[in-house]
């Protein structure tokens, strides 16, 4: 039973690899569009405060943002993060940002959420050292956030 679960995962991965190739060639216009809306100054900002300043100010904490990151990173180079939105508390979200406080450039990712799209993103970020990670959302120019600490450790010595 477990074997078949594994096999299904493998098959899907191969399928997606094939898909990625097709997508890459078809996405040029989207890439150009992304460059236009990409806030370069926010991505190159150093320090959390100046990154916040670049996107429009310090966000307020909001419990409508469900932000999942590992408590301890298995590999600091690829840390899975997930941002979900409780639609009852935040019915509309325009943008989602992911930030890593102590990275040289804290802003790791920005997602535009077109109207009518369910706001849900999963991605991988680098985390250089133990610090807070932030999920920030933009709702009509107003900023909200959720924070969670992810620890980066040398490992070993367990149990």
């Amino acid at each position, binding site marked *: 039973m477990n074997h078949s*679960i594994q096999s299904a995962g493998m098959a899907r991965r191969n399928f997606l690899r094939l898909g990625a190739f097709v997508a890459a060639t078809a996405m040029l216009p989207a890439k150009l569009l992304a460059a236009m809306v990409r806030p370069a100054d926010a991505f190159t900002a150093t320090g959390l405060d100046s990154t916040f300043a670049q996107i429009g100010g310090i966000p307020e904490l909001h419990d409508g943002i469900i932000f999942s990151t590992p408590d301890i990173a298995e590999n600091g180079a690829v840390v899975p993060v997930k941002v979900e939105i409780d639609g009852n508390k935040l019915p509309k979200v325009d943008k989602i940002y992911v930030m890593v406080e102590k990275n040289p450039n804290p802003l790791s990712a920005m997602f535009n959420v077109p109207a009518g799209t369910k706001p849900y993103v999963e991605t991988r970020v680098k985390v250089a050292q133990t610090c807070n990670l932030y999920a920030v959302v933009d709702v009509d120019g107003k900023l909200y956030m959720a924070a969670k600490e992810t620890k980066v450790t040398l490992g070993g010595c*367990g*149990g």
Partner: protein
Amino acid sequence: MERREFNKMLALGLAAGLSLPTLTRGARAANFDYDVPRFGNVHLMHMTDAHAQLQPIFYREPQVNIGVHGARNRAPHLIGQALLDAYGLSAGTRESHAFTYLDFIESSQRFGKVGGFAHLSTLVKRVKANRPGAVLLDGGDLWQGSATSLWTNGQDMVDASKLLGIDVMTGHWEFTLGADRVQEIIENDLDGHIDFIAHNVKDFDFGDPVFASHTVKEINGVPVAIIGQAFPYTPIANPSYFTDGWTFGIQERELQLKIDEVRAAGAQVVVLLSHNGADTDIKLASRITGLDAIMGGHTHDAIPKAMEVKNPAGMTLVTNAGSNGKFLGVLDFDVRNGKIKDWSYKLLPVFADLLPADPDMSALIEKIRAPYQSRLSEVLATTDDLLYRRGNFNGSFDQLICDALIDELGADVSLSPGFRWGTSLLPGDEITMEDLMSQVAITYPSVTLSEMKGDFLKVILEDVADNLFNPDPYYQQGGDMVRVGGLDYAISPLAGAGQRISDMALSGKAIDPSRTYKVAGWASMQPAEGEPIWDVVARWLRDQGTIRAVPLKEPVIKGLSGNKGVA
């Protein structure tokens, strides 16, 4: 009945002229009562962290087990007399010997060895005899920790656990046999016998489950869901190349969804079989709803009674059942009309001399050991001192390993992992190859010699200290502090991350942050080339011949007055 039979045997023994020491030991049998009357209608037996100890052993409970912040002065961070006081136990009793380090040498001589699968098997059969439908759960760390488990690639423990009648298990050190071997065992050996469950192990790319998340057992008509929680930090605490492509973690939200799902499907009792460690279990129990019990392991804490932990919707019991086959937990629920009316929990110590060996299990163990007998029984040295490992800081067996590393590799400093498994030896005992393997039997045993700056040595100590003393148990890994050879230091467990370690010195001289030191170690997180640790320590022990007193490199502990986790 059984006691009467025992007395009869005793009388027969008298007639047959048994030696006096055997008699005195037998006479103490009445001091511990294994008659656990049936309670309720849902019966769960729980063992955990056996670490492949098929034979009876000595295992000294910690003399230092510090709890910080929310965990201060509560179970499991109570040692010695503080633990006895908290649970109303008396010094000098079998319970005191089982649960504490007090008078360890004398008590071990009086009460004999503990654990051993043949003796544990007898206890399981006794508990089962008046509990129809009882299910035996194992919390993991079952297939690793001995010479024979390493040399048979876990097969000895798989065979023994099937004969013991384990029904459900989860894992941690199991994974250090490698993902392929684990899957092979599950498919070839466990199928139809033991459910291997872990809701929190997923494929890294897509989040597909690697194992069954849970199993449902109908116990006397009551559907009982058991959800598996493997050690959340396996690829961090152990080399990640063993579980390439798998991701772990506590996965609190996913667990809540799973509990809601099995409840909706009709489960009347929901239990988490956990390898989180006690403090993480306690925190999890306070945040998750709908769990009736967390039966946990990993931190090797033998908690005499179940803890009742409140959460937003009710209460969850938390139990932790020690290690090394030394204990069997028995949790009974009285379920009527789909609701739990009452419960009862006992943690039974396994005293080998009170529980006759089960003949079938004895035969299997003998068969397992036969091909290795001469290697196992090689005497490397004898010890005049007590040898043990468990405790937050250096134990005497680890000190030998650290000292051997310095001598054999020509190092200034040596580091050895803060494992919590590893059995104990009494003064006067021989140290056999088997005893040594019970401290070092891992699948990544290479020794290493590295050049390291003084400031990086501090980084390592700080990193491990935070894994032990972080205020939030979700950020701890459940090992003890890294063991050190050559090095003196002080530690402030209550200080913040990166601020706990001070006064590092080598032979009275302060460690220079910018100087390079030669540091020996083993159990590297990255693939490493080097002699296996057992060859290095065995050679050193043979040279020593006799181990006299073992002076411990214990740190100076600062800022912990009134803490009942340290004597």
